[in-house]
């Protein structure tokens, strides 16, 4: 009946999150255009439906509802912050549609209608800490984050993990700052003080978005060099670095599943297409963009496999779908709706790119329920029939958390 | 300190007010008896308006005592409590509620309970309406009853404010320059009106119009530099050379 298949794009184009999410809207438009050039999908052209939830969380839910009910989109790619995902989650469940979520997040969630193409904590935070311990010999840890759920949860997991590795309580300093914090003088000097106890110290940063630029500027100005106190960040990618003079930051680290600098033919082609699409040779690429590439290709493949865009069929077909990622491997959709990803540790270079200094030997499957949180270590998720459960408790053998 | 004798309605003793070192009132003492009308004159800047400010709670005195109606200490009360005690005031610069009609201005001023609860549930009775009609007649704004006060001329606002003062039915009326901006005929009418009121209430009038003050025919107090310079009948003070010097001129 319809001559196009509609694809919803639910990313903020205004408000505080526009800075990160606009790029994801653009990359989706590009992917759809490319797909259409290849002849579309199931013989139909794809049609992008763009809405602007304006960094307003309830508006995300409203717009999701509109996309599904009114525009009848087959799938939605969207959200960045966890709160926006939490806001739309019941809508996707109620209206039985699909959402691809491309950003690294705190885990502790697995929902039938959502596919998590960003990293779970075990695909980013834990390997990064391992690297610092092994390669840099770090013994003392500053966990600095913006005060919200993702850093809080990640730090909870890291704290448990570090303690399990024998790190003492007093060798962990946890610090939270408000969103958009811009005066880092005190905290940077506190970090310096903490780092002067004679043990190798590192900062694990879950500082979000806009607060990073002033943070790094202050680090640079107070003369904290990566050789002395390295900072490994989970939310700083190429886009964020594009706003800073990275000269003083060389050597600080980030953990991601993708870097623009990774040399791989698929990546080079992607970068070239992107630069052409945006008409800007300076535009960079980053990890969430790759996640959308993977997610989109997986969805295309699953639709082809199912022969329809019917949500139930596609959801079933998704599991097991494997597509090449942009760093030379193949990512697969796991039964828990998370994907397998390589974990890369990169050092900031003075051209604003990262140079990979370490990577996991193979791909790491995303672990939605952390093994380091007491109430989730017994949970698993498997959306295949017959289990078809997002929170199966292996201890009680029942679906539905720890039960009563 | 025990309150002064009961005949006294308003009692000021040794009241001083200064602004950034400038003494607007300087050890001012003044007694108004119940049922008395008093005219207060004095040069511009003598402190007449400030005296009213101090009595009505707008300005706190630095030193001195003020008692009302026996032993109510006004320096401890705020504006609303003082108004509730029965002290009403007309301001030198007419101040009315710009966005209310003439009628509503009078209605708001009508004597009665001021509590929030009463205001929410009380309805305007016919006796109130009659009283407002009566006042409109007195201030000759009957035709403009539905006009927003903002659109009145200067003199009309003066009258409206006098009307509001009457509506309050206070025990003591403080009237700051009621005749300013009025024609001679209106000035006369105002004097008559005040004399009428003074039959039942105490009135303190500040005016520069000597004809008006003379028409009132009451005791006159002359203020100068924040304290009393001279006191007595109009003829007495008019002949006082110091009053001529600082106030009346030659």
């Amino acid at each position, binding site marked *: 009946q319809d001559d196009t298949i509609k694809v919803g794009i639910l990313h903020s184009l205004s408000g*505080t999150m*526009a800075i990160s999410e*606009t790029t994801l809207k653009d990359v989706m438009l590009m992917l759809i255009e490319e797909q259409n050039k290849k002849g579309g999908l199931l013989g139909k052209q794809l049609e992008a439906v763009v809405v602007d939830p304006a960094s307003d969380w309830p508006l995300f839910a409203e717009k999701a509802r509109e996309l599904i009910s009114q525009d009848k989109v087959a799938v939605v790619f969207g959200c960045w912050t966890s709160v926006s995902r939490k806001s739309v989650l019941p809508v996707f469940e109620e209206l039985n549609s699909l959402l691809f979520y491309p950003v690294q997040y705190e885990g502790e969630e697995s929902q039938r209608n959502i596919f998590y193409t960003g990293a779970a904590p075990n695909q980013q935070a834990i390997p990064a800490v391992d690297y610092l311990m092994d390669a840099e010999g770090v013994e003392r840890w500053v966990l600095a984050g913006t005060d919200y759920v993702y850093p809080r949860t990640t730090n909870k997991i890291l704290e448990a993990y570090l303690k399990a590795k024998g790190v003492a309580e007093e060798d962990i300093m946890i*610090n939270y700052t408000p969103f*958009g914090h811009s*005066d880092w003088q005190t905290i940077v000097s506190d970090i310096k003080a903490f780092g002067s106890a*004679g043990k190798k110290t590192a900062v694990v940063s879950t500082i979000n978005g806009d607060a990073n630029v002033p943070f790094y500027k202050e680090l640079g100005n107070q003369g904290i060099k990566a050789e002395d106190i390295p900072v490994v960040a989970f939310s700083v990618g190429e886009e964020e670095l594009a706003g800073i003079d990275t000269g003083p930051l060389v050597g600080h680290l980030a953990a991601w599943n993708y870097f623009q600098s990774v040399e791989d033919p698929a990546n080079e082609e992607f970068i070239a297409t992107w630069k052409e699409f945006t008409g800007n040779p300076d535009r960079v690429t980053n990890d969430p963009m790759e996640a959308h590439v993977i997610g989109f290709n997986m969805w295309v493949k699953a639709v082809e496999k199912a022969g329809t865009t019917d949500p139930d069929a596609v959801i079933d077909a998704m599991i097991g779908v494997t597509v090449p990622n942009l760093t030379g491997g193949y990512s697969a959709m796991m039964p828990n709706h998370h994907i397998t990803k390589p974990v890369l540790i990169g050092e900031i270079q003075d051209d604003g790119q990262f140079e990979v200094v370490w990577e996991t030997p193979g791909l790491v499957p995303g672990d939605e329920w952390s093994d380091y949180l007491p109430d989730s270590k017994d949970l698993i998720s498997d959306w295949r029939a017959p289990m078809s459960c997002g929170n199966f408790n292996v201890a009680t053998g029942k679906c539905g958390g720890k039960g009563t | 300190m025990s309150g002064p004798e009961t005949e006294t309605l308003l009692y000021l003793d040794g009241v001083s007010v200064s*602004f950034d070192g400038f003494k607007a009132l300087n050890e001012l003492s003044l007694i108004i008896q119940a049922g008395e009308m008093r005219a207060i004159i004095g040069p511009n800047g003598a402190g007449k308006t400030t005296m009213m400010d101090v009595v009505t709670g707008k300005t706190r005195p630095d030193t001195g005592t003020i008692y009302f109606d026996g032993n109510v200490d006004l320096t401890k009360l705020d504006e609303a409590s003082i108004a509730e005690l029965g002290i009403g005031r007309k301001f030198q610069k007419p101040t009315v509620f710009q966005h209310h009609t003439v009628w509503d201005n009078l209605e708001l001023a009508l004597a009665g309970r001021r509590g929030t609860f009463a205001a929410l549930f009380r309805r305007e009775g016919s006796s109130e309406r009659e009283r407002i009609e009566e006042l409109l007649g007195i201030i000759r704004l009957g035709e403009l009853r539905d006009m927003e006060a903002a659109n009145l001329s200067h003199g009309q606002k003066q009258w409206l404010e006098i009307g509001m003062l009457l509506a309050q039915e206070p025990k003591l009326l403080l009237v700051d320059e009621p005749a300013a901006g009025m024609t001679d005929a209106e000035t006369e009418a105002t004097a008559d009106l005040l004399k009428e009121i003074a039959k039942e209430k105490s009135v303190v009038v500040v005016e520069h119009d000597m004809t008006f003050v003379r028409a009132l025919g009451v005791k006159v107090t002359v203020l100068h530099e924040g304290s009393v310079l001279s006191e007595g009948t109009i003829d007495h003070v008019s002949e006082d050379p110091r009053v001529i010097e600082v106030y009346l001129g030659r």
Partner: protein
Amino acid sequence: QDADLRDLINGLAVGGYSETEEQIAALAATGDPAVVPVLEALAEGDVYARKSDRMVFIAEKVGSTYTLTDPLTGETVDEVASGAIDKIKVNNRLRRAIRTALGALTLMSPDAGTRRAAAEAIFQSGDPDAIELIDAAIEQEQNPSIAKLMREARAAAVLNSDLSDEEKVAAIEVIKTRSGRDSLSLLIPLTEVEGPVGAAATAAVSAIEGELAMWDAAQNVWYGLSLGSVLLLAAIGLAITFGVMGVINMAHGEMVMIGAYTTFVVQEIIRSNAPWLFDSSLFIAIPLAFLVAGAVGVAIERGVIRFLYGRPLETLLATWGISLILQQAVRTIFGPTNQQVGTPSWMSGSFEIGLLQITYNRLAIIVFALIVFFLLMAFLKRTPFGLQMRAVTQNRQMASAMGIRTPWVDAMTFGLGSGIAGMAGVALSQIDNVSPNLGQSYIIDSFMVVVFGGVGNLWGTLVGAFTLGIANKFLEPYAGAVLGKILVLVFIILFIQKRPRGLFALRGRAIEA
């Protein structure tokens, strides 16, 4: 011998980080200054291995190809495409190793700066193998401050060695005189040690910590002043458009943003046309930002605000709309992401007064904020325009009747406030993101400062900004950044109860109701 060196250097390309690290140590152990250039280049990431023969060279990118230089002779050897060479990767651990190696190798360098850096590097690494080298260097050192540094470096190395306890106690005494955090990091681990060394270390640590506590208070004041100056800059334009003119100017933040983007554009033009001007870029940007933001301000006043005098609350609605439009306009023109605004070299880094660390950019901002403030003050108090401006804002109609050209004064006043906001944007571009959201992050703080200080009083804005800045910075270490901020807000609320018209309330019968 050169051949041996060459082999060692080629060895850098063999194996992973650990192997490279061993190779660096081996190079350092030669004690041959000839290896210094290659180590320096390695730290910079400029060392490559030629794929064809695994020979290691220093490479420099020229155009699309690389020029290979022999690390020992310094001769240009080859020119190759990027595909023909492999970069020898360095990570932080390697950089640390190189720093230590270079420290030992350059202790005798004729250049004082290099010697100082070398001593500093050894102090940091505390490499006991370097003790002999340092002893030799101390013998020769003429410069007393470098000699002191070397003695401290030696002491650090001693502490890591297996020398006698007396030696170590003596070393602790040396380090104790150095104070500072890095001394602590050397001494704290020793406090665990049994015997005289542990006792001496414990004593030294508590002495240093006592001293640090004093400096910390001073440091907090400095941070407070610095934050205060940022608040002042952000608020000062608003003190005009809102404080003096009474326009509830929700687009104020966007004027700051426009100033920051002006800086960005200026730097872009300089980068591509006149890179040597870069260090002066801010001096060019300041007047331009004033003009650009001022012009936008004048346009807003003429286009919208002037119809709203006498209805100040409506200005809230209109300027909010304008702020949305400006944000989106910038987003459309420049894109939604952060733009890179560089820091001139003279504003990078920091210096120390005692143990007080002062960053140049913050110092520059404090000075700039004060200059802007006092210039503005003088302008308003000393010029006829200032008088006319105040007259117009107090009673527009009467001012006009006095012959003051009110439309012109209004436009210029709003332009002035906006222009100052624009200049603030230049300064803020140095410490914050340059993005379309920039203005939003300052608007609330700006209103708080102006209102806290007392609307219509510029001194209030000044004192208010510094008060809030310092209060914030004294709370932060105890309460944390989030709670600290909450406490400051609660403080403002309570303070206004005490002084309902702000810190420097305008008084007099004209104001008091």
